[in-house]
């Protein structure tokens, strides 16, 4: 049989059709289609979170000084979610963006997973024993050389058992150089010391205030204990009779929440406070009897205020209308429970003590000091009652040397001067610090003139970081002894952020340590035990837990149950209010550095963490595209000023100050005083993960420290800057 082309063609077509029809009618396509929907939901790269028994664990958040109670939801041994603890004294269920993102820090890629040692510029994992051995060896050598004072510690706090243990270690070792990073807490402490003659922290009874006069304090931007402040702000909103006035050159979130926004020339807040005092005194609106009975130096103050701070003069300096000054003063004096507060933004940097005293004087004039709805001088919680550390000769000698940061000498009321630490390291040939411990602080990012800070850190021969995360300062270290994260460790947390009674919270481990980390308290106890003689003897505890439980004594049960303990017995110190220091330091203002036309100021936002911890990915995700776009940070500028510089929305520009320059983009914003450039804090990290590093610019690179003439603390609130379109 001959198969011609036609037959072949028809055969071919027929066969193809047959196979096609056969397959189509078989169950195969149906099976494949059905499978396709199952495949598409079971890709191996899409995780399926395992289910299990749910439990809740309470603790206290230590990611910022706010001290909120947190409740962690767990499934088996995994932490799933962090929530605010209902009924907690600080936050009652609410929680901030950083606290919520805590699990991204716990399980995140920025963790230091084990002790690390820098080896030829690279981090190498080492064992805990060899790490501690190495440090102890160095400590012993330094002590042998008779320079115990060259060992220092930079820490985010000086309260609580961990800080006290480190302090105790240094004391027994023979160093006076325990240095706390600075914040408005220092400014308030010093102002209170000067005005009340007593050392205490500040507390505010916001929940009962009916008028809050804020000199730039970002009560809705993370000032104080953020969640508590949000709740207070909502309380003020609930009542028609309560009000918040915000004095600030930029329409911040706080200014937007305020009943009135007073756009002042930045840096003149103290003058305005004095102007308000002028109106109050002039119109006899102050509490005369109280002032007569509980104050001294009032007459000098009165004379000064009346002479130098007439509303006309104040208006000229501050840019606030005369009528407005009078209206504010009347409103303030007329309120039944007013309070005046200061410390700009989140209060992460100290301010001018003259300003703090002037503002506090307003509270005194109106009877809001130690009064309901007002401000309280709160003693530090007094529960750590250890016997004094034992000192041998070396220690006794070392402890008497001058502090490297010069605190307590030229400025007797200033306890810590971290800005001077940097100077004293950079100004000498060899670093006066031989060995530095860094805990709960990231000065290589958070301190002004970052470049200078890094220079100083490079000079320090040996740096020990206790950070749980790879931050900028840790990158400068020689060895890392990673602490447990806040969710993994036990620690007492004295709450420093403006409560009216001393409160101690208890941070509880809610999860087994994720990495090969160790509690910093245990590390110091262990190191002490490896040191000889008096140091070993000063640490009678076997481990940190034992130390804490013994220290807390009968408070332990309450703390473990509720998560916090309030020192109800503490009494506000009722000293005489002395106006004299205020008069003496009249006009001791802090002026911005430089001679340019524009003033660069920073601003704080809840969505950008400015503390020692970098913004976690979730928080970064909420940053608006008018603040960060790609890797470009935007600076805010008034459209009028922008026009002067030929800048339009989104333009790229170069921002130059005497300290450095930054590539930025421009966001036109009507809510800012002309002549001001505002830049967000919290960006420009070089460390942490790829979700944060390399994004935007660090404001601290552009500003340098400016010493407050009263306290010696860095109180720079801005710097003169130039902006040019690129």
């Amino acid at each position, binding site marked *: 049989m001959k198969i011609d082309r036609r037959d072949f063609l028809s055969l071919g077509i027929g066969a193809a059709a047959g196979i096609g029809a056969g397959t189509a009618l078989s169950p195969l396509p149906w099976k494949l289609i059905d499978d396709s929907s199952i495949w*598409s*939901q079971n*890709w191996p*790269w*899409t*995780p*399926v*979170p395992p289910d299990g028994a749910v439990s809740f664990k309470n603790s206290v958040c230590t990611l910022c000084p706010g001290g909120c109670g947190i409740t962690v939801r767990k499934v088996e041994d995994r*932490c*799933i*979610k*962090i929530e*605010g603890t209902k009924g907690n004294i600080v*936050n009652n*269920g*609410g*929680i*901030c*963006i950083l606290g*919520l*993102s805590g*699990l*991204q820090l*716990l*399980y*995140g*890629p920025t963790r230091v997973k084990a002790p690390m040692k820098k080896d030829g510029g690279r981090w190498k994992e080492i064992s805990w024993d060899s790490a501690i051995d190495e440090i102890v060896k160095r400590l012993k050598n330094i002590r042998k050389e008779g320079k115990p004072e060259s060992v220092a510690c930079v820490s985010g706090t000086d309260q609580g058992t961990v800080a006290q243990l480190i302090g105790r270690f240094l004391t027994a070792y023979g160093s006076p150089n325990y240095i706390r990073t600075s914040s408005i807490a220092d400014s308030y402490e010093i102002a209170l010391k000067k005005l009340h003659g007593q050392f205490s922290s500040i507390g505010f009874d916001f929940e009962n205030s009916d008028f809050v006069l804020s000199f730039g304090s970002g009560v*809705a*931007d*993370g000032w104080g204990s*953020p969640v508590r402040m*949000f*709740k207070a*702000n*909502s309380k003020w*909103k609930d009542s028609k009779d309560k009000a918040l006035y915000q004095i600030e050159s930029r*329409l911040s979130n*706080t200014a937007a*929440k305020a009943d009135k926004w007073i*756009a002042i020339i930045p840096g003149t807040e103290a003058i305005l406070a004095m102007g308000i005092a002028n109106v109050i005194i002039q119109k006899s609106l102050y509490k005369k009897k109280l002032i007569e009975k509980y104050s001294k130096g009032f007459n000098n103050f009165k004379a000064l205020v009346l002479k130098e701070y007439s509303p006309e003069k104040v208006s000229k300096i501050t840019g606030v209308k005369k009528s407005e000054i009078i209206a504010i003063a009347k409103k303030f004096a007329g309120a039944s429970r007013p309070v005046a507060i200061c410390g700009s933004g989140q209060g992460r940097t100290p301010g001018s003590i003259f300003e703090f005293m002037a503002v506090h004087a307003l509270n005194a004039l109106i009877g809001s000091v130690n009064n309901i709805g007002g401000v309280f001088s709160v003693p530090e919680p007094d529960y750590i009652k250890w016997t004094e550390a034992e000192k041998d000769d070396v220690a006794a000698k070392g402890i008497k040397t001058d502090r490297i940061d010069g605190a307590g000498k030229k400025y007797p009321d200033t306890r810590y001067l971290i800005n001077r630490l940097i100077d004293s390291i950079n100004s000498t040939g060899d670093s006066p610090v031989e060995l530095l411990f860094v805990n709960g602080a990231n000065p290589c990012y958070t301190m002004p003139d970052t470049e200078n800070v890094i220079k100083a850190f490079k000079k320090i021969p040996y740096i020990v970081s206790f950070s749980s995360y790879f931050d900028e300062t840790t990158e400068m270290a020689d060895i890392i002894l990673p602490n447990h994260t806040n969710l993994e460790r036990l620690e007492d947390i004295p709450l420093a952020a403006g409560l009216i009674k001393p409160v101690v919270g208890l941070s509880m481990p809610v999860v087994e340590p*994720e990495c090969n980390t160790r509690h910093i308290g245990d590390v110091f106890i262990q190191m002490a035990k490896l040191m000889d003689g008096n140091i070993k003897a000063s640490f009678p505890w076997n481990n940190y837990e034992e130390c804490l439980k013994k220290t807390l004594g009968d408070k332990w049960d309450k703390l473990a149950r509720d998560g916090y303990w309030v020192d109800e017995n503490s009494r506000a110190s009722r000293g005489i209010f002395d106006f004299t220091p205020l008069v003496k330091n009249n006009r001791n203002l802090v002026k911005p550095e430089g001679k340019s036309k524009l003033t660069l100021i920073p601003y704080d936002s*809840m*969505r950008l963490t400015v503390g020692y911890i970098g913004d976690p990915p*979730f928080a970064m*995700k*909420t*940053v*608006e*595209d008018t603040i960060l*776009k*790609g890797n470009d940070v935007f600076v805010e500028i*008034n*459209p*009028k000023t922008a026009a002067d510089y030929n800048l339009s929305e989104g333009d790229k520009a170069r921002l130059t100050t005497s300290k450095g320059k930054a590539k930025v983009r421009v966001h036109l*914003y*009507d*809510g*800012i*005083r002309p002549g001001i450039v505002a830049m967000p804090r919290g960006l420009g990290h070089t460390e942490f993960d790829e*979700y944060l590093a390399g994004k935007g610019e660090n404001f601290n690179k552009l500003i340098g420290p400016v010493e407050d003439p009263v306290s010696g603390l860095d109180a720079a609130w801005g710097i003169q800057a130039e902006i040019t379109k690129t």
Partner: protein
Amino acid sequence: MKVDTKQKKFGMAIDLDKCTGCGSCMVACMSENNVPFKKDETNKLDSITWIKVYKVTNDKKYPDTDLCYIPRPCMHCDGQHGHAPCVSVCPAVATDNDKSTGVVSQIYTRCFGCRYCMAACPYHARYFNWWDPVWPEGMEKYLSPNVSPRMRGVVEKCSFCFHRYQLAMDKAYVEGRRELREDEYQTSCTQACPAGAITFGDLNNPKHTVHKMVQPDNKHHGKPKNPKAFRLLERLGTNAKVYYLSDRKWVRKLGDNQTPNEESSKKH
């Protein structure tokens, strides 16, 4: 046991005068609902935020400028006949307006990613998974088993934390109850909001705070009787279950569009 068969209508009231724009609601939502994140999230047009906080200003010059934050979850629209703009358009019934709760759901495994619902939603409340979700190594540990991580190519959106409703109902059933207390079912954002600006509850239940706050007029598609309350794009007839409150007139006005003619005729 009394079984209440009355339909629920879960909804939200957000006090814009209290909202500080802090962003807690956004992160509370992301961590509750296993929302993924990428290296760069600054392109807000492909950044998944079930609840997104808009920043708006009154458009006035310095120093009369004012600003307001508007948190925008899914509005869980009821439409005019029970049809949300997105629900009626979904070709594959992957989204549904649940009659018994008023929650507009999204079934990720049913969605095939045509994005018609996104085109339909005037609030941009719906988000597409342009990428496969990827968590850095180890971070998948915090993923919640209550909400399945989505695969790429599907649409997702706020569910009013419906899994919390289911969990609360499970618990209630075990305890022999058929009704939830007001505080038993709260969304993650409501719970987290540090300013207490968000109130969540059953709009049909006169005892619930959210009902008292907005006083919805169910005869007029839930229009609020409280003059301080408003909804976004009220005039489109989306019949949203999310209400906003503000004392500020300019904020309330910004909730909906007006033609210039109306404005001038109102003035006279």
